[in-house]
């Protein structure tokens, strides 16, 4: 079992003729993902590694029954690409693109609330159900099949924690990188709910970072609604207030919430142990599963 993605998922890759799109479409297929189409305006009729390319996402849906899109479109056009996927009634859209203007995402967010499509990202590594399918840029070889769900705002931190788990023989149901931008589609609460309802997920890892209040909200949700044990990690304990660490999602407001301290204490209050190191997160998960 898994959440959101499995070997039946039919994927259209938006931007499949670009460098990243092409490379990662190949990687996804090598992993076993069912990539059925590409969509690139003006490139309809071409093929990339045997995958037919269409001019629009609508055509890919009509001709190949695509139900999920993975978006590798440059930032200036990525907002529009997400709109196109939302307008095509897909089940799931995964936006890998980093650097989409926040105001574009605010408009996407509004449209998203009016559709049934689920968005993951943007500025995320994607998601993977080990042994079945991966959507995005995650390095497939570090993941393994198992019973731990993982949700994270940071791509490389996801890899680090998964590596710690896999090295101990602990596998994953699904790992979801939700992205660190100020405005994202699926958030911690959504992902926690999916894992809570997945009978095969026996423990959950949640990796957050400074900035915003999503972790605090997740803590409140866990307290009320989640019986599956959760272990957490929060990056940015040593970040100085007011400095921008990488992406906009990581501005410490300096006013109580948004800091590592406030997130860690909210999680602790909800019964979630937070590791000081990624290795400690794996310790907690091991204890849960023992």
């Amino acid at each position, binding site marked *: 079992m898994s959440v959101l993605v499995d070997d039946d998922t039919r994927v259209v890759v938006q931007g499949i003729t670009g460098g*990243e799109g092409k490379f*990662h479409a190949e990687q996804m297929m090598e992993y076993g993902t069912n990539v059925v189409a590409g969509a690139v305006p003006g490139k309809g009729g071409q093929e990339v590694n045997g995958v037919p390319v269409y001019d629009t996402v609508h055509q890919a849906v009509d001709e190949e029954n695509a139900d999920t899109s993975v978006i590798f479109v440059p*930032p*200036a056009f990525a907002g529009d690409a997400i709109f196109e996927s939302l307008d095509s009634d897909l089940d799931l859209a995964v936006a890998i693109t*980093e*650097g*989409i*203007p*926040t*105001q*574009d*995402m*605010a*408009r996407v*967010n*509004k*449209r998203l609330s009016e559709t049934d499509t689920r968005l993951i990202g943007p500025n995320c*590594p994607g998601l993977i159900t080990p042994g079945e399918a991966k959507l995005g*840029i*995650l*390095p497939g070889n*570090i993941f393994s099949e198992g019973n731990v769900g993982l949700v*994270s*705002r*940071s*791509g*490389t*931190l996801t*890899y*680090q924690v998964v*590596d710690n788990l896999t090295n101990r023989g602990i596998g994953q149901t699904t790992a979801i990188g939700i992205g*660190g931008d*100020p*405005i994202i589609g699926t958030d911690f609460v959504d992902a926690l709910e999916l894992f809570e309802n997945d009978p095969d997920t026996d423990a959950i890892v949640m*990796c957050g*970072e400074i900035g*915003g*209040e999503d972790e605090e909200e997740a803590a409140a949700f866990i307290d009320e609604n989640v019986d599956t044990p959760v272990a957490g*990690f929060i*990056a*940015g*304990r*040593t*970040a*100085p207030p007011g*400095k*921008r*660490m*990488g*992406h*906009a*999602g*990581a501005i410490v407001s*300096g*006013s*109580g919430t948004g800091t590592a301290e406030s997130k860690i204490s909210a999680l602790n209050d909800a019964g979630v142990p937070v590791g*000081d*190191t*990624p*290795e400690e997160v794996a310790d907690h998960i091991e204890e849960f599963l023992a």
Partner: protein
Amino acid sequence: MKLHEYQAKQVFADAGIPTPASQLASDVDGAVAAAEEIGYPVAIKAQVQVGGRGKAGGIKLVDDEDEAREAADEILGMDLKGYHVGSVLVEEAVDFTDELYVGITMDRGEGKPVAMVSTKGGVNIEEVAEEDPDAIAREHIDPSFGMHPYQARKAVYDAGVDKAVARDVSNVLMTLYELWDDRDGSDAEINPLMVTADDDVIAADAVMNIDEDALFRQPELAEMEAEAASTGDELEQKADEYGFDYVRLEGNTGIIGNGAGLVMTTLDLVDYYGGEPANFLDVGGGAKADRIANALDMVFSDDNVESVVFNIFGGITRGDEVAKGINEALEQFDEIPKPVVVRLAGTNWEEGMEILNEDLVTVEQTLEDAVQRAVEYAEEVSE
């Protein structure tokens, strides 16, 4: 990206928001000449991008030439919270009866822009937000429609703004939203928006932060950025040139990694193992060899750095490219300036390990070991 006050004021004035007469000056004579032209009294304001300039002595009100000369001499060249003051804004001093706050920002929790108005202007608005949140009227805006005029009026009336100026303040708020929207603002603020005895409103300060990710469609503002950046920290400027996300810190262990979350985690672990991070440096996704070499150059340029830890977990970034970059950067030295510890994992890490010249670096297999080793090296030097 944050515009200087004089730049933001120009943008606001061009859009029709009333601002005081002002001129930029970079030397004492220029400041005095500007003051004479504008007419006393004037305010002389340091153009550096830090809050609380007034309290730190960066803003002075002067009544005549002698005072202007003295104030300009004092402020120009001063070190204001770590920033060198290279220019001042000489500005007409406005007689006011009230000070308001108006601002537009993105409410990330709601995923929508929010307009804010308060009659408690002229003070630290973050403190007002914390101590008396009801003193700030807030109006969320549907980004697909933009702000309706009724919303601007509602915010102004909800805040309790005097009816005599409500219409003018609503107009300023509408204009501010349109600017924020057109120019890809992240924050646009006027604090204070002064109300004069004649019931005019005038923007006595101006804050405009632009979404860096949108600069590609804001060429005019991108030019201003180059100008604005010229007074910052030297290393941070260098990072801008290389295009790195970089923050300089106080410690002695240099840190290079890929991905904001993992780099922050590396900082946290340096601290956890008793060391002190010297910087945050994210090379970003998919970095090629030359970028890796630039990152090392960057960190070696910081005199405080006594050791460097490289933490790369490849997804889109490839271990062989990273290894090539590290070799390239280090092979040019007869003697490596500071010990470098490398931890490679993920995509092509094995190829990377084969390429990496182990005579030049210390290799560790795990994040924890790499950080501990770098902290030890930094400590050895400090002893």
